[in-house]
């Protein structure tokens, strides 16, 4: 990890940490709620991958676009989405960011450039590319970033959109979060070669330690600069790991089956590897923040998460009739 330490810089670094902690605590709380049966639908958690989303989104403005995945809470929060509105959504409430109509796999906030989590693996590629095409035509300086997993990189739309973005020099960033797993399948058993080599035929590429928030930030900074400069797309791959199951309550699906070992998971949870504790060590050992400042962040975030739970729980049930008017603008379904 490396970064100079001016005071502006200190604010930035502190904000990065806070955002990662927010995601971690928000996801942990959702895990608890899921286990307690408090959530109507399934949730796919981002725990362990926080540095990727936070580092990447730290280079984007509100007006830039992202598309996300089924594992979308982290991206939503990293891009500045509101936790209250997200929780209310996941709890199925009217105050949800999507009025309770979409749920965990569809959290979106267009005003923040979040074109939505997506339940279709690979569903974001083309949407992000279209947004980049729109931005290019408008010449509005916006950048479009597509988050996707290593599993999604086997969907053909990956190649199709790399081709389009490259030939039309679109302001795109392909942000591959390589957590080595596709549901209950170890990705290396279904994936040929290195993903980054697929991108090399189309654009510059950067592979980076996805648990190092500053490294991600730096790599994406380059990519975004290229996109804004009209030089076209970049592929950034963040190597990371998902700590929780593919979805909460995974055990019920596995029925005793296994696709990875406890040891493997634990190896990614050490203080040296976990994206948050690792960044905290960096901050303290470089004298950028002290333990107290970090503790204050944790406390503040904890409060924010607790408040969000209250907000969600206190929300009103979704409007059961809303579907009929939401399918079309100004037209009944």
């Amino acid at each position, binding site marked *: 990890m490396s970064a100079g330490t001016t005071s502006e810089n200190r604010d930035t670094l502190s904000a990065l940490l806070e955002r990662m902690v927010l995601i971690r605590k928000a996801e942990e709380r959702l895990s608890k709620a899921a286990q307690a049966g408090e959530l109507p639908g399934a949730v796919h958690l981002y725990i362990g991958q926080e540095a990727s989303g936070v580092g990447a989104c730290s280079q984007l403005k509100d007006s830039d676009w992202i598309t996300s995945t089924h594992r979308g809470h982290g991206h939503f929060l990293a891009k500045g989405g509101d936790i209250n509105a997200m929780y209310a959504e996941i709890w199925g409430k009217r105050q949800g960011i999507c009025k309770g109509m979409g749920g965990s796999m569809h959290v979106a906030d267009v005003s923040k450039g979040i074109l939505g989590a997506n*339940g279709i693996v690979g569903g974001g590629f*083309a949407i992000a590319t*279209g947004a980049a095409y729109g931005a290019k035509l408008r010449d509005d300086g916006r950048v479009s970033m597509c988050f996707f997993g290593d599993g999604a990189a086997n969907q053909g739309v990956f190649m199709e959109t790399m081709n389009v973005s490259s030939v039309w020099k679109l302001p795109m960033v392909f942000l591959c979060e390589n957590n080595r797993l596709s549901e209950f399948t170890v990705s290396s058993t279904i994936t040929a070669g290195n993903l980054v080599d697929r991108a090399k035929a189309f654009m510059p590429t950067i592979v980076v330690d996805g648990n190092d928030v500053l490294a991600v930030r730096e790599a994406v900074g380059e990519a975004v600069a290229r996109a804004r400069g009209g030089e076209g797309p970049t592929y950034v791959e963040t190597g990371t790991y998902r700590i929780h199951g593919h979805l909460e309550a995974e055990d019920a699906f596995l029925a005793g089956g296994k696709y990875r070992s406890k040891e493997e998971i634990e190896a990614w949870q050490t203080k040296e590897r976990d994206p948050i504790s690792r960044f905290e060590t960096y901050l303290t050992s470089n004298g950028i923040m002290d333990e107290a400042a970090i503790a204050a962040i944790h406390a503040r975030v904890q409060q924010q998460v607790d408040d969000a739970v209250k907000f969600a729980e206190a929300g009103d049930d979704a409007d059961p009739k809303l579907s009929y008017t939401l399918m079309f603008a100004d037209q009944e379904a």
Partner: protein
Amino acid sequence: MARRRLIQAINDALAEEMERDENIIVLGEDVELAIMGDTRGLLERFGPNRVRNTPICEATLTGMALGATAAGYHVVLHMMFANFVYTGFDAIANQIAKMRLMTGGQMEFPITFLAAYGGGASNAAQHSDSAHPTLMNIGGINVAMPSNSADAKGLLKTALRSRNPCFFLEPASRGGQMGEVPDGEHLVPFGKANVLREGKDVSIVTFGTTVRTSLDAADQLAEQGIEAEVVDLRTLVPLDENAIVATLARTGRMVVVDESRDRGGAGGYIAAIAADKGFKSLKAPVKRVNIPNVAIPYAPIAEREVLPTADKIVAAVTSIVG
């Protein structure tokens, strides 16, 4: 009034609306040289930022159309043949048709898809399909199916001014068909059927490619003394259910004609409306003339066998009238 081929009327609508609204852009494989003729001349007139050939990658094109609306564009995506809708179907069925609901209404998708459908030219099974039954079922996407030049122009203009996604399906083998088009601003609203011929004995309810065939059948029937009313639904989504019930109230008998496979096709749905809301008026079985449950064969004699014809319509009508 001007006499225009159906394909020219489409071209006129595109040009006029692109003139009117600079947010309309046209994308698709070979739209620059206009493989279907409907986008001819648009590149020269509106330039490469608004009319652009794409790579062959339907799965991406449909999703890109969605994405580009985020920048405020109305995207016209030419999908060439309706069969290729299937190739790009994920973003249509899983994204565009659902995302407005999924995002709680945060987004709108002003997208007009163009595609040619139907048989009649020995294009064989992979270039002759009718995708409208599938498209009308996925929800969230309008479906317009003009039968003549005037409607082609007027419906397409309505689509291009709408904030909702729409499939505008062109009859593949009828692009050359001539028709009168009203001068000046000509818009045809969605969800309003058109009674093309009045008659008291039976209603022929139809749309798109089979309207002409139905009118021919009505002529033949008139010679036998049977007065058929011919109703052109014009759009399947939204669907003018009132017009179906109303014509049935006048005639008491109905034959539904369309160019889609029978099983789960559009005709069955229209017949079901008759059997429900129009039941009071029904004096005879509701008949369907459409495509048997087969893929379209190549040889002309075999293709003719499976397509709706005036003779088949006449036979269906005479089986329930008198």
